[in-house]
């Protein structure tokens, strides 16, 4: 039988490869906004996610920062959670097995006080069953030691990257901080040090003051700004790095809907992560995914790769 004359609507190809991690679609969760998965299982089918990036994990358990840990700002959320987590050993034992029941890549975000911490964390996760990749958090603004300090110095960022790469065979994604003079300079050094992919951006350092009490709102004084208010900064960062560094980028920062995600893709992101939007709409990841697919069908895009960096040709 011939199909001649009948326009067959093939479903577009949404699958992407991020530094060796095969994702069935480009929509991941942003670390710290999605817990360890079961929190959102009542709302969405986790199998439909491109990848899950779990909460930042440290070598030892962390109690986190004092309350208040969150304050809303115009179109944004300032948070200072302070990497509250059960520690890598309990994570592997108690939290990771749950995700083994799902067919999706699990990316573990790691944070350390020292370069050695990152190396040990990488080693432990390398041996853990069910970890598809490691996201190196060198950009958390809410902890006293480590965190953003590593991410704001290109040389230190490279050192952390090398230490992680030296202890794992798994794909290593480095999450970059926007709180730097040149994000391109950091990205280049991290790429030279062997990173397989980049996540960008982490939150912007910010603060809010209560004029009634005349004191900072957050228990930890300063926090990280996320949400739609940071999106233009994030899109710009992805745009700049895509031009200079040949690594796949997971773009994130205030993605609330498919159109926002597509901005990142057109700027150069091969995949995207949904963060704050999960708090507003627990089905946000699925809405973004469906919206991207719809856009591709309407615009006759066969493969998502056709869109990655497509806006770059209008660069001045």
């Amino acid at each position, binding site marked *: 039988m011939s199909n001649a004359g009948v326009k067959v609507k093939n479903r577009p190809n949404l699958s992407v490869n991020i530094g060796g991690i095969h994702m069935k679609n480009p929509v991941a969760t942003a670390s710290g906004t999605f817990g360890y998965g079961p929190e959102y299982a009542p*709302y969405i089918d986790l199998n439909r996610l491109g990848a899950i990036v779990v909460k930042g994990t440290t070598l030892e358990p962390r109690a986190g920062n004092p309350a208040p840990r969150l304050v809303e700002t115009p179109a944004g959320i300032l948070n200072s959670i302070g990497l*509250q987590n059960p520690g890598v050993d309990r994570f592997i034992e108690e939290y990771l097995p749950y995700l083994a029941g799902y067919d999706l890549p699990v990316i573990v975000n790691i944070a350390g006080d020292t370069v050695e911490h990152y190396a040990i964390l990488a080693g432990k996760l390398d041996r853990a069953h069910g970890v598809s990749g490691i996201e190196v958090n060198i950009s958390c603004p809410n902890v006293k030691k480590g965190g953003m300090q590593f991410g704001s110095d290109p040389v230190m960022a490279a050192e952390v990257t090398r230490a992680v790469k030296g202890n794992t065979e798994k794909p290593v994604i480095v999450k970059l901080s926007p709180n730097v003079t040149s994000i391109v300079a950091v990205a280049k050094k991290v790429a030279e040090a062997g990173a397989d992919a980049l996540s960008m951006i982490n939150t912007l350092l910010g603060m809010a003051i209560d004029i009634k009490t005349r004191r900072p709102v957050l228990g930890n004084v300063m926090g990280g700004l996320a949400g739609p208010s940071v999106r233009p900064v994030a899109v710009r960062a992805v745009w700049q790095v895509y031009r200079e560094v040949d690594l796949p980028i997971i773009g994130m920062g205030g993605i609330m809907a498919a159109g926002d995600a597509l901005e990142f893709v057109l700027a150069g992101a091969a995949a995207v992560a949904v963060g704050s939007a999960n708090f507003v709409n627990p089905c946000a990841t699925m809405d973004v995914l469906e919206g991207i697919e719809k856009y591709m069908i309407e615009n006759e895009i066969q493969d998502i790769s056709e869109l990655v960096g497509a806006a770059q040709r209008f660069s001045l």
Partner: protein
Amino acid sequence: MDAGIVKQQEVAEGYFRLTVFAPAVAVAAKPGQFLHMRCGDTLDPLLRRPISIHAVNRDKGEVALLYKVVGKGTALLAQKGKGDQVNLLGPLGKGFTLPERNEKVCVVAGGIGIAPLFCLLQELTARNHSAAVFLGAATGSQLLCAGEMERCGHIVHIATDDGSAGFPGTVTGLFEKTITPGSSSVDRVYACGPRRMLKRLCEIIRLEGIPGEVSVEERMGCGVGACLSCACKTRGEGNGVAYKRVCMEGPVFPVGEVVWE
């Protein structure tokens, strides 16, 4: 899910009672749980607002929320009326542990703190279990639900900061004055209200060795346990402290568990 608004009334200046048609919520809801409400489609405010379940009517499939307008989110919610839709998640969180049938129960509410406690009292009424209610407010016009609670057979003691109704002073002051120290006049206490009130109440009832539960408030993000924003400082293992999630392990905590600062 989206739910239709059946009714919205301003019950006192700045205090609203919102009734929605949500049969699934009505069936599942337990006293002390909350709904995470989207107050509008705005980016400012961006987040949902956690609001206590105030009353449930399973026959009609209705759930009522009682809230005070304190900021942009609740102000937007207060603008909605009959026929409008509102998006909600829930019921969420861990509610109150119900008392044994023969226990002498005290309920202590400060201001809008009556919101979740009324739901508990509704459950007690259904079990023919009457409670002593200590209801405090800044002024007489802000005393909510007093008549309704009395009609259900609960004994209501009133305190106002300005002395315009009942005992002049704090609700904890009235509670302390009314209960007989060292006696077994109270077996269990349930409370909700401003942090300072709860702190003082917990001191009193711990001294008396009375078990109880408090419903606490904290700025909340996701409402489903993922973001760890709504941390409540609690006594952890040994002498340590542990931050628990108000949205998951709370909003109701045993009296001895919360570390007040």
